[in-house]
């Protein structure tokens, strides 16, 4: 069955990324938004204001991250940062950037003063030859390294990102050498995701037989240096002693919904066998098609819990560079929907998990538990019942006290029905921004 898993989960539902626009002065050979640059506009100021105002009310997100294209090229970036900071509802404002413009110390300082406190800077090569070959812009390496040096001098939270592909896979640990003098909090390595080149005609997808040992080598070096390592889209079981560096999560994103039509899907043959399949995406389809399922190389960790086909991805909260995940936020308005249900039923409300798509309440009674799940009202979708804002259903029934769980569910449904004021917003879309974010195609070009 198609589920959110394998498409874009796990999502960090307390981090929000906003695509400001899609212009860029580099042309990285593996850029996953290259096609998007032709097809999509960024998020309009109105959309941003609406998202920020929603966060001021709901406090769902701890962090807002602005990205592009190359976000430092956008004149409106300072307005966007100001809007986010003025709301007072975000703990952190992050930029995802290629770092080239930050070679200008004045700009770096202005961004810091505007309230950008975290910088996630791409560096795809350890030297100018490698980086400039990938970015297809001579000088980009020198600029990015100067940008990184400026950020280090300013003492901001600095993270680097290296996209792994055939052009740099042999040099990953040398990238560590290049970056380490600037003492980043974290170095990330994201394995390349083909968006529009399924057949890998550009020959950028590297086989795991090469990727895994090189990533492990780089992580070993990072660990010795006391820098945090993070790896995406390399199976967790191939990271050996560095499995804790595995993190396939991405923030919630405001981007044209259609962007996700082309987003690679993932699979692992051992999904039902492996303890980590909620957090590990496995391999993307283009990889499997080119190099195979790697059924002999992958090493599932035997499950301790029975496999349940995931309906939504695992709940993941907010990133905290250098310190692991932040604690989950509390959501009083949502908690209030079921206040009283647990004590009335000798149960415990052990979690309230608010994502953009669902709000779920986990009730526990002794060894038994059940999750009551709210999703956006949708008369076409199966539901136990509906209230003005929600479809309600339950899942994850566990333990022997079935009758007690049934009465908890009945009570929760009745209570939510009485208290739902209408207009409480959940949204199943991933990208959130609809067709209005699509650029008009030049006339004469077929749709």
């Amino acid at each position, binding site marked *: *069955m*198609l589920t959110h898993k394998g498409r874009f989960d796990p999502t960090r539902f307390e981090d929000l990324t906003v695509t400001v626009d899609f212009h860029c002065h580099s042309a990285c050979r593996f850029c996953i938004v290259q096609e998007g640059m032709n097809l999509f506009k960024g998020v309009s100021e109105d959309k941003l204001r609406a998202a920020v105002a929603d966060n001021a009310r709901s406090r769902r997100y701890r962090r807002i991250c602005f990205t592009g294209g190359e976000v430092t090229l956008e004149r409106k970036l300072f307005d966007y940062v100001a809007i986010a900071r003025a709301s007072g509802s975000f703990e952190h404002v992050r930029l995802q950037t290629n770092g080239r413009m930050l070679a200008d110390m004045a700009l770096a300082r202005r961004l810091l003063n505007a309230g950008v406190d975290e910088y996630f800077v791409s560096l795809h090569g350890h030297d100018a030859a490698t980086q400039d070959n990938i970015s297809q812009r001579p000088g980009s390496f020198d600029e990015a390294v100067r940008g990184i040096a400026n950020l280090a001098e300013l003492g901001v939270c600095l993270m680097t990102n290296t996209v792994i592909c055939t052009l740099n896979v042999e040099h990953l640990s040398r990238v560590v050498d290049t970056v380490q003098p600037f003492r980043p909090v974290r170095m990330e390595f994201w394995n390349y995701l083909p968006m529009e080149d399924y057949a890998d005609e550009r020959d950028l997808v590297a086989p795991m037989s090469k990727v895994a040992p090189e990533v492990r080598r780089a992580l070993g070096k990072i660990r010795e240096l006391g820098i945090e390592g993070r790896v995406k889209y390399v199976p967790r079981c191939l990271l050996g002693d560095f499995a804790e560096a595995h993190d396939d999560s991405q923030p919630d994103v405001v981007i044209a919904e259609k962007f996700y039509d082309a987003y690679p899907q993932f699979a692992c*043959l051992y*999904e039902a066998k492996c303890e980590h399949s909620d957090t590990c995406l496995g391999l993307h389809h283009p990889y499997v098609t*080119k*190099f195979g399922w790697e059924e002999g190389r992958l090493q599932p960790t035997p499950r301790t819990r029975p496999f349940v*086909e995931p309906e939504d991805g695992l709940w993941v909260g907010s990133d905290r560079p250098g310190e692991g995940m932040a604690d989950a936020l509390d959501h009083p308005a949502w908690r209030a929907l079921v206040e009283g249900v647990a004590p009335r039923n000798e149960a415990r409300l052990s979690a309230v998990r608010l994502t953009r798509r669902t709000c779920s309440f986990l009730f526990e009674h002794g060894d038994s538990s059940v999750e009551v799940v709210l999703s956006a009202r949708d*008369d*076409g979708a199966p539901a136990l019942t509906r209230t003005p804002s929600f479809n309600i259903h339950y899942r994850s029934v566990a333990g022997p006290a079935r009758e007690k769980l049934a009465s908890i569910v009945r009570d929760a449904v009745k209570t939510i029905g009485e208290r739902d004021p209408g207009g409480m917003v959940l949204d199943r879309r991933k990208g959130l921004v609809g067709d209005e974010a699509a650029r008009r195609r030049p006339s004469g070009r077929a749709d």
Partner: protein
Amino acid sequence: MALLDASALLTPLLESGPDDRYFDYCLQPYRPRRSWRARLRPENLLWRSLAVGGVLEHLRPPLLALQAALGKDMTVWGIKWDGHRLFWEIYVYDPDKEDPNATLEGIARTLTPWFEVLPRPRESIPYQMVSFDLDASVASRRTIDELNLYLTGGPGHAGRSYKARATGVELENTYRFLDAKREIDQILPLLKASVFVDYGDPARLSKVLIPELYACRTICVAKKRLRDGVYFSGIAVEQLLFFLRRFGYPSAIIDLVARRPGAFEHLFFDVGIDYALDGDVMTYPKTSFYGTL
């Protein structure tokens, strides 16, 4: 066979209704993904394919008669495609022999005005399902020369299908249905135990366990006389579209889904591929997809 283009295929589309029931290709019930409202019945795909194959006029009346005799949604159809030619298989399930219309005798009776069913294997064979093939030549010959009898497997014994002709019955294929994810440890060795495909090339398995289709509920591993087959059951309409495009189905069939994927969003589909190696290249001599009538 000349395939007709889409402009010739303006059959009215049949909408889903509140009484529709939902079964997979083994006639196992499933819960629809979405409400039936403003959506289409799966049989539209069958009618469209028959129209594309130029046999709608001939084959619609007997199939409607079967539908009337067995009950709506109780007949499974398979649409098959070899890259050039469409053909069909119609499956009737009645493992507990409850419906006299679902017996060999009953099916032959229902089809009598259009087809003479020649094979008459003994009714007491413990088959759980019987099927017959249809194509343009059957339509013009007006005889059904072969029936397929499917016998359930059990632990240690795969399901089998037998080809029954007027002259006798012979073993055709063996099948094993497995949970796609939970029973992967059994699926892999079964697939790889092949006389037709060498799995030495590590990428080869992905041409059989196609990643886009692996997100399904049940996988059926089939061993056939001249090649292997694998079936993916419980896929969504997005995956069906991928499948139709991947295997180059006629555009009028693809368009029926592609123009209104939401209209089939409530359904799960089942698809199958027969595969064999031609030198180093995986070929798919026949693919198929399934729904109910």
